[in-house]
């Protein structure tokens, strides 16, 4: 037993060892030449999906490696364009009709859309998926994305045990989802929400099959009943070992791969070895492995860069001294060198001076409120209400413990010591404890490391969702009337230019009031074998190339 426990902390040594052993190998890869750039009709791709997902139920899941499986098998009314990340019609044949007041969205399904077992997809199937999302019995982690639909929030917040079945039924019937015909479905929203199309492109509203859920019960996510309308069908799920997805012949577009197998390897050092052993077609290229990869010309040429969709920050609990004073917060934000951090520690990613990452709607390039400036930071601290007070010397930085996280927070700890002369205590806690702590400002630690990854590319999902004072995910306790007003106005604004302006104003307030010190925008790299072609990656990929999976193919492996 002791071996099991100590192993956890030692496992990072694995990575180091893997680096050492592979660094001294210098073995040339023997991929040979790819004969032709032609798709192998029997092509099989093998990738690593990390650990076993807890659930792949579209209306319950919330983690990347869960969504990565669901979206192989299902497709929503809309999908995101792999290049622009704008919502485009998927199972819907064309853009929906939107009523003049912006409240009613009517989608018409594409002709001939089928499930992998041949059954036609109807408007009723979509209505079932969306209704299931709002149903309080489902307890979905992402139910809140449906709250924009009339009646969803009220129904979802009812208690299936305490409330009478009649009351529940009545609430369910008030839901703003109507099946107009076999092919038409209408949604009524609580307020105009241009981002609804992006929500319709996520996994929450995919056409889960009622007959399959009823047949499979709790285990409907097993291959026999996990039937969808996406590019692949799940033919095997060996728990804790692998998924096998085969091409769905009934998909609305031709799928070039015959099979996509996803194994579950937790250790990046091992998946790296497996990639070099040609057991995997996609391999890891994280910061710890980069030096090894860059020393080998073959491997180096197989690295693919992917921009990220997350913004990582140090958060302040604005209800706890000394972070009740915005000057103290801004002083912290301006006194660590993000460029050096990326270069020396993080290796992959971009230093962040505002919340929304570059290349997506709402990014504010000119924002320099939190720019690294030691003199200004010192001045801010000196003029703050806590200057010289003991509260500044008892600050504790809480973080989700891991070997890599430790070196990272130690680095910034040193920065604040050098630049502000403040000694911070470090407070590592385990993951689940951390998640529980940051749930609300009442329990949120004084100072903590966290990040936000977008669900859909719209500033609403960044600014309003995270920092509006009524948000369910706020943990900084940040309350700013002006910010609240601007974001709520922007959410409803139909004129895109005006909407962008409102968001930019609110974004500036955020940087200046500094409920968080922006740290970096993430990015990632991975390795791809030369025989894998047709991959279009995007910053929102739950799975490599997920928005154009049907185009991926492999050529004959030399």
């Amino acid at each position: 037993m002791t071996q099991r426990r100590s192993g956890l902390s030692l496992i990072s040594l694995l990575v180091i060892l893997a680096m050492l052993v592979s660094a001294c190998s210098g073995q040339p890869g023997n991929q040979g030449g790819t004969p032709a750039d032609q798709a192998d009709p029997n092509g099989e791709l093998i990738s690593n999906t990390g650990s076993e997902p807890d659930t792949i139920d579209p209306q319950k899941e919330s983690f990347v490696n869960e969504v990565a499986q669901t979206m192989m098998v299902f497709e929503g009314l809309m999908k995101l364009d792999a290049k622009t990340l704008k919502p485009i019609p998927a199972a819907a044949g064309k853009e929906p009709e939107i009523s003049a007041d912006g409240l009613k969205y009517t989608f018409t399904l594409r002709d001939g859309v089928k499930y992998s077992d041949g059954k036609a997809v109807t408007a009723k199937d979509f209505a079932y998926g969306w209704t299931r999302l709002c149903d309080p019995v489902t307890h979905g982690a992402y139910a809140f994305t449906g709250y924009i639909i009339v009646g969803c929030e009220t129904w979802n917040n009812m208690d299936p045990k305490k409330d009478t079945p009649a009351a529940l039924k009545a609430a369910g019937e008030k839901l703003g989802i109507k099946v107009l015909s076999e092919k038409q479905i209408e949604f009524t929203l609580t307020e105009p929400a241009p981002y609804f199309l992006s929500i319709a492109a996520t996994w929450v509203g995919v056409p889960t099959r009622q007959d399959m859920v009823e047949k499979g019960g709790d285990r409907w996510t097993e291959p026999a009943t996990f039937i969808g309308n996406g590019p692949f069908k799940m033919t095997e799920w060996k728990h804790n070992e692998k998924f096998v997805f085969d091409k769905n012949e009934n998909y609305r577009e031709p799928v070039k791969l015959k099979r996509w197998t996803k194994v579950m390897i937790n250790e990046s050092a091992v998946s790296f070895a497996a990639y070099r052993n040609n057991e995997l077609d996609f391999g890891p290229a994280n910061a710890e492995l980069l030096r090894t990869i860059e020393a080998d010309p073959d491997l180096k040429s197989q690295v693919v860069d992917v921009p990220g969709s997350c913004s990582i920050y140090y958060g302040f609990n604005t209800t706890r001294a000394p972070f009740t004073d915005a000057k103290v917060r801004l002083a912290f934000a301006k006194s660590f060198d993000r460029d050096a951090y990326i270069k020396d520690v993080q290796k992959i990613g971009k230093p962040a001076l505002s919340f929304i990452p570059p290349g997506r709607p709402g990014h504010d390039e000119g924002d320099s409120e939190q720019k690294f400036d030691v003199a200004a930071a010192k001045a801010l601290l000196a003029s703050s209400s806590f200057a010289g007070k003991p509260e500044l010397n008892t600050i504790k930085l809480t973080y989700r413990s891991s070997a890599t996280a430790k070196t990272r927070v130690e680095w910034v700890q040193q920065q604040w010591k050098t630049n502000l002369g403040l000694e911070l205590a470090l407070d590592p806690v385990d993951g689940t404890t951390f998640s529980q702590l940051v749930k609300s400002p009442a329990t949120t630690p004084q100072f903590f490391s966290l990040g936000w990854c977008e669900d859909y590319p719209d500033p609403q999902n960044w600014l309003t969702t995270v920092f509006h004072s009524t948000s369910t995910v706020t943990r900084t306790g940040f309350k700013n009337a002006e910010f609240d007003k601007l974001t709520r106005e922007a959410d409803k604004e139909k004129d895109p230019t005006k909407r962008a302006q409102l968001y930019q104003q609110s974004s500036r307030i955020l940087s200046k009031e500094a409920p968080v010190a922006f740290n970096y925008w993430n990015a990632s790299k991975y390795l791809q074998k030369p025989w894998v072609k047709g991959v279009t990656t995007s910053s929102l990929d739950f799975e490599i190339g997920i928005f154009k999976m049907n185009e991926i193919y492999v050529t004959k492996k030399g």
Partner: protein
Amino acid sequence: MLKYTIRRLLLLIPTLFFVALIVFVLAKSAPGSPFDLNENRPLPQSTIDRLNEVYGFNKPIHEQFALYLGNAVRFDFGSSLVRNRPVADIVAAQLPVSAQLGVQALLLALAISLPLGVISALKQNSGVDYGSLLLATIGTTIPGFVIAIVFIYIFAVNLKVVPIVGWATPKHMILPTVILALGPAAFLTRITRSSMLEAIRQDYVRTARAKGLGEQVVVVTHIMKNAMIPVATVVGPATAGLITGSFIIEGIFSIPGIGREFILSIQKRDYPVIMGVYLLYAFIIAVANLTVDLVYGMLDPRIKVAK
């Protein structure tokens, strides 16, 4: 013998009760809950309250424990709170894999350590003895995951003779079995050697030689049989440890065993799985210990278990 066995089996009940009690209290007192897994998308408090009620987590802890025990004695171990699978299913699917790997490793470990330990003792301070000492030192001091990564590098990445990922074919099983066997093999070699050396110096061995028995008979029936008692003592718990899986080896080779559940269930505060796997572990340990005690009686008639 039968009476003794029955009495020991009955003693299992209080043992498992206390294990259950301790694990239950510890698991519940860890901060956080299975509904706190995603800090970026926390469930609304109303949903958590509802979930707590569904699973009875809002009741006092002694009531929860009574409820759990009540179900457990009827062999209903509940369902995982984070995965839609009954605990019994998880164990039924994953324990056989770990058990197979564990038994293979144990047999390999015994096949290496017993002959090596016996020969080292009989030829004390010879080349074989020093060789086994070296092997044993390496096996006990270098952790399995280090050996694993070195073996992966040599046999998979460089020589490309074995695959790394999964548990599909016998070829996949070679590396994990060998690596898992190394630790116990080293340990058992040392135990076998030292208890052999102790037995060799006993009076009854001198007596046996004095009455003119052949060397082979002396070694097998007088020395080895007695030397096996300490070995049996450690093989019991080692077996229990091996068949319930190894978090590290299963993690490295992506083997769908039960070993990883010991860690992951705790990380996710998946109470039913925590209880299930630790009770299973306690049960297997207890059975292994009982078996060892029964084997004592066979090895050494002076130890009377039949009282």
